[in-house]
């Protein structure tokens, strides 16, 4: 973890397909946010977004990573994976649209709510994806809203 007065930055690796560990990174991120005293409503939104995004990597990719960046102004989650990518992002953003397998549904996910949930909780959300290469997400939460 790199930490200074100006902010904090930490990178975590996500193992694809490892359902037993799925969510551990989001739990860790939540703990870090609690330790540094981020407002609880923001922690909650960030934890939900992070967990959904982490589950997507576990479910669809071989591996991925998330970088947590915190500055006095914002909390930034950057996710990248080497999964199959998303053919039609607009469709994937619709609630209920899902390409999940039975195994994913057994884990309680794959209802087509993941990306919409992330967007709903974030102050800024950007997604880019290349089929066959992977997907990246930029999720931002403002820390000094008035």
């Amino acid at each position, binding site marked *: 973890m790199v930490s200074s007065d100006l902010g904090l930055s930490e990178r975590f690796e996500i193992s694809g397909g490892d359902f037993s560990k799925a969510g551990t990174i989001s739990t860790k991120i939540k703990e870090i946010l609690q330790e540094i005293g981020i407002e609880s409503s923001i922690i*909650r939104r960030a934890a939900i977004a992070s*967990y959904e995004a982490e589950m997507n990597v576990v479910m669809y990719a071989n591996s991925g990573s998330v970088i947590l960046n915190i500055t006095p102004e914002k909390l930034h989650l950057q996710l990248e994976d080497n999964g199959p990518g998303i053919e039609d992002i607009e469709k994937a953003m619709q609630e209920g649209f899902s390409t999940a397998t039975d195994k994913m549904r057994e884990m309680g996910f794959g209802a087509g*709510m993941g990306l919409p949930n992330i967007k709903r909780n974030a102050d800024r959300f950007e997604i880019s994806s290349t089929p066959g290469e992977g997907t990246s997400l930029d999720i931002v939460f403002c820390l000094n809203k008035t």
Partner: protein
Amino acid sequence: MTLKDIKEFLDAEVICGEKYLDIEIKFAGGSDMMSDVLAFGQPGLLLLTGLSNSQSVRTADIIEAKAIIYVRGKKPDDIGIALAKEKDIPLLSTQHMMYTACGILYNKGLPGVSKN
């Protein structure tokens, strides 16, 4: 109502977190889909679910749910129980099915999550 009241209404067994039975529960929600729970869940929720893997406990921790009731006699796996102990989330299990368990609690005056 307290978690202890809920335990009695549902004839539930405590899996872990016996010491938290006095906590007050103000509302509940039931789903097997964790993305739904992440979408509707609010801090303080009592979660009723039939999903018995560790993701149910992790989801409860993320949304700051107060406790989990597993329906239809289900019980979480060891990873889930260990996580619940670490995060101080009491886990209970009832033989009732989801619809019946929710109906009993609603009938006793425990409301659902408000829509907004």
